């Protein structure tokens, strides 16, 4: 079979590059090469550590009032000799420690909210796209309807009725954000369902469950991860605005939004009370967005080899046929 040999002789060299082992080491190296994504990832990692270990790592008790050390500016030292990296608030509580504890609330609300709305939305969206018919019509009209509602107002109204608090916030966010995932999951499902490989999976006798779980979902991961990351940022911001309005997290628990709300009264005299938590929100959202862009590239099964392989020297052109 000389004909076969000619066909395959050229393959190993051409295909060698793309056949990088998809290992954690390759991912780590790819992350190191992308500086922006790397800095963002490090920032998020530090934030997660700070949030998770706030009770151990924070230099002060976040709720310990020290009236002798009120309004210490950032990098200032109180009269009793305590150093405060980001200053203190109107009750003399250390702002840095409060930010760390606030991060715990903000991050977990963002993560859990995105996770819950993601699970609900993706499940419904995939089912709608896969089975079409009445289910799809009802669901998608519901999505349209929900999208038309002013979400902040609805959130305020429901929280007014069922009362504020951590669990209720998650519930509200799931209720108000599942549509985003449902829409995207449905359109992705519709898109992939047209592909021959879904027909092929059916032709070898795959059940619906199997086709959805092993053939559809892995192909949808990349855009959904991006959406998930972006949603975390959106939810952190929503939580901030709800807490700012007094319907979110309640004192003595603190979150970034709540800190801004409290600091608002002193904005002319103690700017750091508003700027610091504001910066925390901004930087977290920014880092999440930047990591999302990187995650999109790296999770695409067809595209990721480009990011996972080290860049070539310029005199070695590569034929990037997709």
């Amino acid at each position, binding site marked *: *079979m000389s*004909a*076969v040999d*000619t*066909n*395959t002789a050229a*393959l*190993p060299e051409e*295909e060698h590059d*793309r*056949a990088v082992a998809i290992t954690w080491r390759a991912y780590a190296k790819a992350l190191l090469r992308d500086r922006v994504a790397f800095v963002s990832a490090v920032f998020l990692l530090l934030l997660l550590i700070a949030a998770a270990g706030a009770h151990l790592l924070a230099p002060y008790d976040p709720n310990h009032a020290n009236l002798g050390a009120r309004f210490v500016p950032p990098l200032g030292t109180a009269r009793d000799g305590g150093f405060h990296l980001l200053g203190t608030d109107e009750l003399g509580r250390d702002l840095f420690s409060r930010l760390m504890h606030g991060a715990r609330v903000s991050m977990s609300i963002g993560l859990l909210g995105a996770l819950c709305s993601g699970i609900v939305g993706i499940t419904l969206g995939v089912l709608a796209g896969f089975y079409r018919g009445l289910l799809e019509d009802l669901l998608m009209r519901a999505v349209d309807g929900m999208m038309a509602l002013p979400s902040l107002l609805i959130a305020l109204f429901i929280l007014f009725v069922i009362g504020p608090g951590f669990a209720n916030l998650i519930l509200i966010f799931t209720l108000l954000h599942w549509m985003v995932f449902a829409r995207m999951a449905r359109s992705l499902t519709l898109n992939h369902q047209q*592909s*021959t*490989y879904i*027909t*092929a*999976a*059916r*032709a*070898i*006798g*795959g*059940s619906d469950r*199997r086709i959805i779980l*092993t*053939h559809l979902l*892995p*192909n949808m*991961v990349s855009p959904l991860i991006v959406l998930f990351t972006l949603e975390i940022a959106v939810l952190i911001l929503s939580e901030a605005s709800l807490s700012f309005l007094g319907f979110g997290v309640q004192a003595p628990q603190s979150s970034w939004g709540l800190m801004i709300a409290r600091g608002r009264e002193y904005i002319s005299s103690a700017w750091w009370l508003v700027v610091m938590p504001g910066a925390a929100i901004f930087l977290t959202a920014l880092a999440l967005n930047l990591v999302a862009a990187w995650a999109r590239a790296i999770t695409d*099964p*067809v595209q990721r*080899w480009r990011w996972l392989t080290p860049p070539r020297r310029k005199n070695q052109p590569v034929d990037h046929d*997709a």
Partner: protein
Amino acid sequence: MREMHPSQTTDATPAPLLEVRDLRVSFDTPHGLVKAVGGVSWTLSPGETLGIIGESGSGKSVGLEAIMGLIKSPPGHVAGQVLFEGEDVLTMKESRRRQLRGEKIAMIFQDAMSALNPALTVGTQIAEVYRLRRRCSQTEAERKAVELMDRVKIPSAKSRVRCYPHEFSGGMCQRVMIATALALNPLILIADEPTTALDVTVQRQIMTLLADLQREDGMALVLITHDLGLVAETVDRAMVMYAGRVVESAPVSALFDAPSHPYTRGLIRSMPRIDGASGALHAIGGTPPAAGRMPRGCAFHPRCTHRIDRCRAERPALRPVAPRHTAACHLVEEMTHD
């Protein structure tokens, strides 16, 4: 080697493995019901190679997809009978039918590149059915995948079993596709234009491979194509479809030596020949009818050079021309004599 079917050993003519009776497929569209396949009947014996020839839109793929149960309903409607080993596939329970697909009847597709899941390794995909039906372990499945890759002559299978489809060339993807279809040793392999997306040398390799595998396993092959050359080389019996109906069905030698339907004649004359006179190729005038606007009478009459008044009014039935050779034309007798 598969063990012989009981009826096959006793009978001179083997019992059909697959029998299609008056298969009709239509679709709901915004312009009303459109008939894609209008009453097609054929049989397939064990180990036989059947070629289905037709232009795009002649209903050749749709008919086979209906047999496989890949037509979504609604908007599709499938009627008629498809007997697999005497059992009607169209009316059986969905779970039983799913069992049949992959296990007994497998299908490969035109564009192998897009028929493979980009998110899964080829090994996973090849062994998928096997794992599903035989309930084996991951390592066992991978071993099976390597074995199947060897069978379809993918070189250094062991090192490439964990590659992704985009790391493979088109011909290699088609081999992977074939390996997937062969995992459970099906009795029938339906190949929907398996080589259309490939260049000619690779085309040749794939067809040789299919013929080899067929000889080894004794499976029946249904080859859907519009490539007459391919049909002439590989097929035992060929069926020509036009506008959703069979217009001629004959052993392949008879089809090329004595085509009896004007459409078949036109097709064969439009094929370039290495021994024929050079010059412009013959073309069949006009275009095939749109599925929604089928002409009355014989669907081919607006393009037929031999048409008579009867063609406009009455649709010709398939009539025997010679043993195992049928054609649907009012002028069959005249056509075979000139």
